[in-house]
Each structure stands twice: as structure tokens, then as C-alpha cells.
């Protein structure tokens, strides 16, 4: 194309497109300018990236290598920037993974101690249950003994104190000075030993990081006291504590420091010396004021206390028993040494046995008796506890027999020989063997003959012995009193006949009796059981009985009385049998009764008759009863009478009917038929004309006669 045509074309373009062309030129210029391009892209880049991320992941893929490279470069240049940036993130991340691991570890500790049933274990288990914590946590807790007293938050760069907190009870130093000094010390240590650490051959591999690896002083200790320091990028946390803190505390410091950094990085970096900006941090620092007390560990546990008390008690007990045993033994030896008839010459010990050598009179007490009397071998008991200080096998006696002249033993021996009666006392009165009291004449005279042989050189005195008549052989009944007056014996009271007779003979044989009088002794008639209205009198073989008595007693009397020795005859003349007397009285009474009838009236309709009959029946019954008591048979004769009217035959008939009427009535009332007989008493020649009506009335009757039959022999 020629230049001309080009120009012409341009001209044409200008004509047609005039303004547009100018615009295009401007656009062209805009596009070709690098500066304006950058501006354009930068204005849309954030939006573009945002959109791209939403649509697909290509952009992220494309950017990844770039970012990776950038990070590498940055780290190479200065790792500190990156470390500082990562610091708040890395801690929590690591901690999370750690806590998982620790949880597992706690779990396994838990299982390890699960089956330990120590007292402490049980106690902690209870505590865990109570507090809702795991057992392992409680175990961990009990292994701590420390107390954090102060917490310092220090700006790393200046060493100025950002915040400080302390336990109330702790004496405070100037926290600002401490803070600065701590920083200085750290700096000093780091600067002084940094070099040598880096030169360490083992660290060679990490040499390229030497400028970034911080060697920090993280603990200062002085005896029980220590300061723990934890470094952050901008701040340092330091705690002053007493005792031995667990690793857990370090973890707490790290966590606190990380939290503070997260929240206050800029504030710390731009700290201008005004502490009040960090007042809120104080609360967080307070979390580090940890403490754990092992108070119950320090205390004497109940078990130990119990054991110690037990041992002390045991020792006391042993000591007490030892004293007790010694005391008993000493008592025993003293007693046995003073025991008459026993002489201890030596005490030896052999094979756990104690042997007492010496002499013993056979009449002396046995050593074992003394031992038991002295409670030597008796066990000592206190509640369930029993302790036997000595047993019989432990104590052996080698005692030879001998005759002791000790007074007690001598008395024992002499008593054995002379057998004194119970009223006689044998004793020493100022070395004189004395016998006093009453004794039989025989016994005394025998003693007198032999006393020289028996008294064994002791002087003797028998003058106080009173010779007595010994009546013990005659078996005096209690009812008899014997009075002795110089050989005269008088018996009074009541005694069985037998005894009276026997004594008359035997008493004469008793030595010392010259005369025996039993005239006042009455024979014992108590076995006759005389009623109180009866008097008995025994005289010369005849028993006189007087007074009143029932038939029963009288019947038995003769047999009983005659069975008593000495009674030959019984005189009953003066004795009244009250039963017989009553019988005759009842007979008389019955015989006075009559039943009166009215004239011509039928017998049964007579009401008066019935009344009479009832009364008479009662009397008859009494009479029969009494007769039976006396074993007397009786017959009741019922006599019927009639008045003088009518002829004999009628009168006879009437009188018979009347008697029969009464008899039938008695039978009906249960009276034995065999004792009743009825008789008609009508007179043949009755002087009717002379009889008044009064007489007639009296004759219209039934009367009674009682006969006692003699007792049939053999009944």
C-alpha cells in the first residue's frame, strides 16, 4: 500500500469515525501504559479473587506454590516473625493433642491403681467420688505440695512490670524491682552462657537456627523457694513459689501467657509504662496462684497413730503384767516362808522351772494350797483378756518331811492325837499347852495319863478342864429336859414310854451319875389325838379317860391306847359318848311326834296331816342318820289309833289305814321299807260313852316308837 492511499484512508476515517477514533487512541494509550494497567488490576483484584474462590478452586491451586515459596523465603530471612505469628496458635494446638494423650495416660493410671485397696487408696477413691473427679486426678493432686505466692507479668523488652498479683498473706517486695532484676538476671544468664550452649557439639545440627533459638532461664531455685519463668514473644510470666510444684504449673503458666498474648499483643508491644492498662490481666494471673497442700499426709494417719498407740499399750501391758507377776511371786514366797511347818532353804531355777527346796511338816499347809489361796496361779482377767502369771508345772517343790515344833503345827498334831470333844479348846497360853472346857470324865482321865508323852517338852495345864457327865448316849428326846446336879439327874417333860423304861436302865451305867429321878416325866400320849374335851390320865398302868368325845374317836381309842407300851387298862367310865347321847335325844324327840287326823275325812285330803308328816320325816331322817353313824340298827313302829266311835272292826280298819298311810308316805320319801312296820292300835273295848270329843280328837292319830336293835356280832 502506497503512502498516499494510506493518508487518504486516514482522512476518510477521520471523516467517518472522527470522535470515536480519538477515543480509541486514548484507550490504546491507556492499555499500553503499564502504570494504569496496575491500577486497573489492583482495583478489581480483591473482587476477582473473591469471585474466583467462590466459583472453583483453581485459584487456590495456582496460588499454593507461590504462598509456599513466600513462606519459605520469609522463614529463611527471619524465622522470628513467623514464630511470633504462629505462637498463639501453636500452643493450643499442641495442648489439645497433649491433653488427649494425658487423658489416656490418666486412664491407665486409673486402672493401675484400681485394684489397690490400701487405706489411702480407699480414702482417695472416696474423695474422687465426692468431688466428681477421676481417681487419677485425686492421686495426682495428693502428690503436690507447693504454693505459688506471687505472679509477675513482665514486658520482655524493658523488664518493666506489666501486672503483678500476690497471695494476701505474703510479705511483698517491690514488684517493680523484682521484675527488673529478674529480667536482668535472665539477660545476664542468657548472655553469659548463650555462647557455650551454641558451641556445644550436640547442637551443631541446629546451628542455622542459633540466632532464633532462645536459651532461657526458666527456673531459679534457692532451697525451698523458687521462681519459675515462662517466656513469650513480648512478655514474660514469672511466679515465685515455695515447695515443689508439679509440671502442671508450667502448663498453667504457658496457657496463661498464651492467652495474654492472644488478647494483648499490641498493648504489650506498645506498653508505655502505664500499668493500669493491664489491670484486667490480673484476674488471669490469679489463676497461676496455685497451691496444693498435703496436710493429711503430714498428719499422723489414724492407722499409724493406732499402731503407735497399740505398741505403747502393748509395752505398758507387758510392763504391768511383768510387775504384777513379780509382785505375786514375791508375796507368795514371803507367805510360804512365814508359813509354819514349811522351811525354804533355797530357790533355784532350772529349764524355766522354779524349784523350792526345804522341809515341810506333813501337817503344814500344802504349798499348792497356799499358791491358790494367794492367787499365784490364778489367771488375771480383764474382759476377754486372760493372763496366767504362773502355772503349776512351773513351780516345783523339793520339800523333805520333818516334825515341826512350831506351835500351830504342834497344836494340829496334838489335836489329831487326843481327839478333843467339841467343847474342849487346845491352845498355848504363854508357852504352856492349855486345855480348857468340858469333857467326859473318862476322856479327861485318859488324857491325864498320857499328857507327858504327848506334850513333847511343853509344859501343860489341864486344870481348866471340867469333868462332865456325858448324856449323849441316851438320845434324849427334845421333849425331855435333863437336869444334872452333882451326879443327880432329874428328867422332866414328856417322853415315849419306851424311852422312859430304857433310860431307867442305861442312865445308871453312865459314869458320874449317882441318882436318877424320872417321877416328873409324863408318858407321851400325844399319839392318841385326844379331842380337847377329853382328859387323859395315866396312872399305874391304867389310862383314865374323862370328858366328852365322839363315837369315832372312842371306838379307836381302846386299840390305840392298848398298843402303847405301859397301858394295861382303860377306864372310860367318866367319858361321855356324845353321839349316843344325841341319838337318844333324837329318839325321844321323834317319839313325841304324832299325826292327827280329822274325823271321817279321807286321809289324803287332810292338809294338816301333810304338814305334820313333812316335819316328822325330817326328824326321822336325822334319827336314821345318827343311828347309822353309830352302826346301830333301828326299827320304827308306826302305831295308828282311832276314836271311840264306831264298832271295833271299823275302828281297827281306820287305825290301820292311818298307820299305813304314814308308812307309805315314808317309803315314798325314801325311807328303807325294812325298818318300818305299821300297827293298828284300835281297842276292842273302848268306852265310847265316856269319851269326850277332846279325847276322841287326840285318839284320831298316828304315833311312833323307836327300837334300837342290839349290834349283831360280826357286822
Amino acid at each position: 500500500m502506497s503512502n498516499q492511499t494510506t493518508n487518504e484512508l486516514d482522512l476518510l476515517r477521520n471523516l467517518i469515525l472522527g470522535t470515536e477514533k480519538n477515543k480509541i487512541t486514548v484507550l490504546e494509550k491507556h492499555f499500553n501504559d503499564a502504570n494504569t494497567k496496575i491500577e486497573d488490576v489492583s482495583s478489581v483484584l480483591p473482587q476477582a479473587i473473591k469471585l474466583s474462590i467462590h466459583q472453583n478452586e483453581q485459584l487456590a491451586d495456582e496460588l499454593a506454590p507461590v504462598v509456599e515459596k513466600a513462606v519459605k523465603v520469609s522463614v529463611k530471612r527471619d524465622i522470628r516473625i513467623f514464630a511470633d505469628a504462629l505462637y498463639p496458635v501453636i500452643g493450643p494446638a499442641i495442648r489439645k493433642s497433649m491433653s488427649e494423650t494425658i487423658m489416656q495416660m490418666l486412664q491407665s493410671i486409673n486402672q493401675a491403681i484400681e485394684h489397690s485397696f490400701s487405706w489411702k487408696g480407699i480414702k482417695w477413691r472416696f474423695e474422687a467420688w465426692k468431688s466428681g473427679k477421676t481417681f487419677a486426678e485425686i492421686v495426682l493432686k495428693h502428690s503436690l505440695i507447693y504454693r505459688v505466692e506471687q505472679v509477675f507479668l513482665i514486658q520482655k523488652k524493658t523488664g518493666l512490670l506489666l501486672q503483678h498479683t500476690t497471695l494476701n498473706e505474703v510479705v511483698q517486695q517491690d514488684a517493680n524491682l523484682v521484675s527488673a532484676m529478674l529480667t536482668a538476671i535472665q539477660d545476664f544468664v542468657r548472655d553469659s552462657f548463650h555462647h557455650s550452649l551454641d558451641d556445644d557439639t550436640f547442637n551443631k545440627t541446629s546451628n542455622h537456627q542459633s540466632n532464633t533459638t532462645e536459651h532461657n532461664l526458666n527456673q531459679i531455685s534457692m532451697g525451698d523457694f523458687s521462681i519459675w519463668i515462662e517466656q513469650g514473644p513480648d512478655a514474660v510470666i514469672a511466679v515465685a513459689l515455695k515447695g515443689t510444684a508439679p509440671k502442671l504449673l508450667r502448663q498453667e503458666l504457658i496457657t496463661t501467657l498464651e492467652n495474654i498474648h492472644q488478647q494483648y499483643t499490641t498493648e504489650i508491644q506498645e506498653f508505655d509504662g502505664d500499668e493500669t492498662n493491664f489491670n484486667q490481666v490480673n484476674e488471669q494471673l490469679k489463676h497461676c496462684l496455685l497451691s496444693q497442700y498435703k496436710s493429711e499426709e503430714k498428719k499422723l494417719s489414724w492407722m499409724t497413730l493406732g499402731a503407735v498407740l497399740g505398741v505403747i499399750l502393748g509395752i505398758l501391758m507387758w510392763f504391768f503384767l511383768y510387775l504384777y507377776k513379780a509382785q505375786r511371786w514375791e508375796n507368795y514366797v514371803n507367805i510360804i516362808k512365814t508359813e509354819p511347818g514349811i522351811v525354804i532353804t533355797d530357790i533355784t531355777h532350772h529349764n524355766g522351772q522354779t524349784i523350792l527346796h526345804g522341809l515341810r511338816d506333813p501337817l503344814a499347809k500344802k504349798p499348792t494350797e497356799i499358791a491358790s489361796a494367794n492367787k499365784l496361779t490364778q489367771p488375771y482377767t480383764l474382759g476377754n483378756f486372760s493372763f496366767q502369771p504362773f502355772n503349776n508345772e512351773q513351780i516345783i517343790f523339793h520339800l523333805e518331811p520333818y516334825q515341826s515344833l512350831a506351835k500351830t503345827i504342834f497344836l494340829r498334831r496334838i489335836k489329831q492325837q487326843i481327839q478333843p470333844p467339841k467343847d474342849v479348846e487346845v491352845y498355848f497360853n504363854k508357852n504352856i499347852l492349855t486345855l480348857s472346857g468340858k469333857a467326859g470324865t473318862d476322856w479327861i482321865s485318859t488324857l491325864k495319863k498320857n499328857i507327858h508323852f504327848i506334850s513333847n517338852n511343853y509344859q501343860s495345864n489341864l486344870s481348866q478342864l471340867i469333868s462332865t457327865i456325858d448324856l449323849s448316849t441316851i438320845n434324849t428326846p427334845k421333849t425331855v429336859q435333863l437336869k444334872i446336879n452333882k451326879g443327880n439327874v432329874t428328867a422332866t417333860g414328856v417322853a415315849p414310854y419306851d424311852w422312859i423304861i430304857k433310860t431307867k436302865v442305861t442312865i445308871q451305867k453312865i459314869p458320874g451319875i449317882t441318882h436318877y429321878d424320872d417321877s416328873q416325866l409324863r408318858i407321851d400320849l400325844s399319839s392318841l389325838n385326844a379331842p380337847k374335851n377329853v382328859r387323859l390320865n395315866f396312872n399305874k398302868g391304867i389310862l383314865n379317860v374323862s370328858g366328852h368325845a365322839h363315837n369315832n374317836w372312842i371306838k379307836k381309842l381302846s386299840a390305840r391306847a392298848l398298843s402303847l407300851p405301859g397301858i394295861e387298862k382303860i377306864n372310860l367310865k367318866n367319858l361321855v359318848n356324845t353321839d349316843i347321847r344325841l341319838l337318844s335325844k333324837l329318839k325321844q324327840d321323834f317319839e313325841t311326834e304324832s299325826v292327827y287326823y280329822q274325823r271321817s275325812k279321807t286321809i289324803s285330803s287332810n292338809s294338816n296331816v301333810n304338814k305334820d308328816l313333812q316335819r316328822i320325816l325330817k326328824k326321822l331322817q336325822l334319827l336314821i342318820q345318827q343311828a347309822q353313824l353309830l352302826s346301830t340298827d333301828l326299827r320304827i313302829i308306826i302305831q295308828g289309833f282311832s276314836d271311840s266311835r264306831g264298832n271295833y272292826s271299823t275302828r281297827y280298819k281306820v287305825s290301820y289305814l292311818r298307820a299305813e298311810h304314814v308308812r307309805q308316805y315314808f317309803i315314798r320319801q325314801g325311807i328303807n321299807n325294812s325298818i318300818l312296820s305299821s300297827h293298828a292300835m284300835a281297842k276292842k273295848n273302848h268306852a265310847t260313852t265316856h269319851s269326850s270329843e277332846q279325847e276322841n280328837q287326840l285318839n284320831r292319830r298316828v304315833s311312833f316308837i323307836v327300837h334300837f336293835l342290839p349290834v349283831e356280832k360280826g357286822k
Partner: protein
Amino acid sequence: MKKYKICLLGSFAVGKTSLVQRFVKGIFSEKYLTTLGVKIDKKMITIDNTEMEFIIWDLAGEDEFITVRDSYLRGTAAYLLVIDGTRNETLETAISLHERMQQENQSLPFVLLINKSDLKEQWTIDATKITELKQSGWNTIETSAKTNKGVAEAFQLLASNLLKN
């Protein structure tokens, strides 16, 4: 109330510890006990009704064997350079220490203390050099820990420089 880390820098035995003792506790001792590492004290200062707390780091003086540690200087808000008027070489040490501080932070306030002014007749210090320094903007003050001359003023001057900053 704000707190500030203040450092005392200078050659050995120029009287750093003595000045702090005088300022903080009001006492002075002829005895020379060289400071090992650092000794820290605290003092309240009031300037124009503003209270401030100085945490004073009294650093061991420089000698042939010991150089002041960088770490001690970190975070310093202001510093006092101390020289001994009777020892001219202490000024050189002070200047080199100042240069070290300037490398870290150009704008830190400081004051030069020419100590032992009670021994002025024995002074060997190069007066022209001092004048030069003054002209280049240094604040200088003659002090005596022994007589208490200029001690409080030196700290006050530093404090007001700090506030101006």
C-alpha cells in the same frame, strides 16, 4: 503513673552507683564496691505535676574486661551517661556507649553527668570537647554524689527530656 526504664552508663568507678544511692536513698559512701552486672533501684519523680516512676538500672561500668551488655540496654526509655571529671578517658567511654545507644534508637533522651565536681581542682577533663558536645545538643550537668550537687537536677533534666519526647 507511668514507669520508665532508665540506665546509668559509664566507665567503671565514675560514681554511677554513688549517684543512684544519693538520689534514691540520700546517702554516700567513700567505699568503692564495684557493681557486678546490674543493680536496680526505683524512684518517683514529679515534673510539672506529672508523676513518673524511674526503674533505674545501675549497670556495671565498662573496663578492659567488661562491656555493657546489649540485653541490659534493651527497652531503655532514657539514660544517663556518667563520666568522672578527674579521669579524661571516661569521656571517651561515655561517647562510645552513647554511640551504641544511638545505633539502637536515635531518639532516646539522655544527659551527660560530669561527676565528682567536688574534686574540680583535680579535673583533667577536656573542657573544649565538652563545649563541642554541648554545642551539638548534648545536655550536660556537673554533679557530685558526695556533696549532692546537681544529682536531683540531672534526673529532673532527664525526666523533662523524656516528657518532651
